[in-house]
């Protein structure tokens, strides 16, 4: 690997990092606008035209608020909590293929930071690490409500990780690889051999289980029990103020972006779009259009997250556990068996 390649990778990492932060920033704006739309209000409209500068104003407000560390909180861990939350949210995007290869002059740029051959498992590792931010922050606050929020987050994440893993196994049985790049390549185009190439049409049940688990893992309504304000004041971030609170809230939006990207790559064809090689365009244009297609899919998923948030009420905790253990896990196991039978007898 030459110096130029390292430089290109570095630029790519910085661009992806910047994009995920900007998307997360404007997700907060979108969330408020969409909430306003669902509740027949106008939403933020003071900062700039259509309130477009609202995220910047929010950010400035977060930084300028008073920084409070409670007397009985354990100091280092209190700061480590939100830092871990935002760190784990940001590193998930490293294995996602954002597009095909781009040719600039003599250099061929691979639009993926790294194509490790355990890509999906890496995503799982990062997701399972994400709960530590909430747990450590909740415990370090030395507050009963925070602790309850942290404990809820832990048991919720563990429960839904199992069904998420099981739903992925059925997908892996069909694709035969753990690399996200290869999975995206297998869904090339839209239609071949008399069936859709996108995995959502081959694994509809698996996708349903996966998206429910994605809601639970990102702590979004209807599964946002760790910060359930009707019971727990503010949940795990009751004691947080200023930018430390901002990090927790921001990490949730980055998680939404990354999980949208993962769902688009695994089930909705990633950067592939219909007729991509019948338009008569050059490779570079196809790559750029593919990137735009991927982002369109991601934005759809982010919209879907918000749509559900402002439509479906929050679950009760026992309902959440029942859904995870008694519904999703048996369904996921049945999905694996059906997939195995189909692969064995229909040989597809």
């Amino acid at each position, binding site marked *: 690997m030459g110096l130029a390649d390292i430089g290109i990778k570095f630029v790519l990492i910085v661009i992806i990092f910047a994009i995920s932060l900007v998307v997360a920033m404007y997700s907060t704006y979108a969330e408020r606008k969409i909430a306003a739309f669902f509740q027949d209000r106008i939403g933020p409209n003071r900062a700039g035209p259509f309130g477009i500068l609202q995220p910047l104003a929010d950010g400035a407000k977060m930084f300028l608020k008073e920084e409070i560390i409670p007397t009985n909180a354990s100091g280092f861990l209190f700061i480590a909590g939100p830092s871990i939350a935002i760190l784990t949210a940001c590193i998930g995007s490293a294995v996602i293929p954002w597009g095909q290869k781009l040719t600039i002059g003599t250099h061929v740029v691979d639009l993926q930071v790294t194509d490790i*051959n355990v890509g999906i*498992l890496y995503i*799982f*590792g990062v997701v399972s*690490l994400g709960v*530590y931010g909430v*747990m450590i922050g909740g*415990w370090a606050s030395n507050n009963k409500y925070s602790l309850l929020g942290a404990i809820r987050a*832990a048991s919720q994440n563990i429960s839904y990780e199992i069904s998420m893993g099981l739903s992925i196994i059925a997908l892996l049985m069909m694709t035969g690889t753990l690399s996200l790049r290869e999975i995206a390549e297998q869904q090339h185009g839209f239609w071949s051999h008399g069936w859709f190439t996108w995995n959502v049409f081959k694994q509809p049940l698996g996708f349903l289980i996966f998206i429910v688990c994605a809601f639970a893992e990102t702590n979004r309504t209807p599964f946002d029990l760790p910060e359930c304000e009707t019971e727990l004041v503010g949940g795990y971030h009751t004691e947080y103020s200023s930018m430390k609170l901002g990090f927790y809230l921001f990490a949730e939006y980055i998680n939404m972006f990354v999980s949208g990207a993962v769902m688009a790559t695994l089930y909705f064809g990633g950067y592939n779009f219909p007729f991509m090689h019948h338009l008569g365009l050059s490779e570079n244009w196809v790559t750029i259009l593919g990137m735009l297609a991927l982002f369109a899919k991601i934005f759809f998923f982010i919209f879907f997250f918000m749509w559900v948030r402002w439509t479906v009420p929050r679950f009760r905790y026992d309902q959440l556990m029942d859904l995870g253990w008694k519904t999703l896990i048996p369904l996921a196991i049945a999905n694996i068996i059906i997939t195995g039978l189909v692969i064995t007898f229909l040989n597809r």
Partner: protein
Amino acid sequence: MSTFYFIAFLSIFFSILVISAKNPVHSILYLILTFFTFTIHYILMNAQFLAIVNFIVYMGAILVLFLYTLMLINLNKESEPRKSNLVKFAGVIGGGCFLVTIVASLKALGVSHPVVLQDPNLGLVKNLGKILFNEYLLPFEVSSILLLSAMVGAVLLATKDPKIA
């Protein structure tokens, strides 16, 4: 090689902190860091699958449950049991004897030959899966039954009245 020594130093350093930390929650957090250094060891040995499984299962699941339990029972410095001086004295003597035994037995041992792997890509998912499901199919399946029976047993123990369950 220097990476190995650095990571090995970190593993030992964090595992000493695990047993010397006063607060049980801090111990668990150091244990998480220790397991993280183990993951790096696996990656250095090109055992990617083992590395990521160690990451997900140990760091991501088992230690979350450890932390969960500790937070629920809320142990802290004040509730830690105080040992009498006699017990501490006995502990020091016992530990010293153990150290002497280990050093003596290490001196008696010859230096082993380093094992050279035939196939450096053995740790990749595909190769590992092929070996597990061809050569070692029976032990693999038997261990899965063992885990299943342990799970059923745990559920049985957790339900107080078998009639309610």
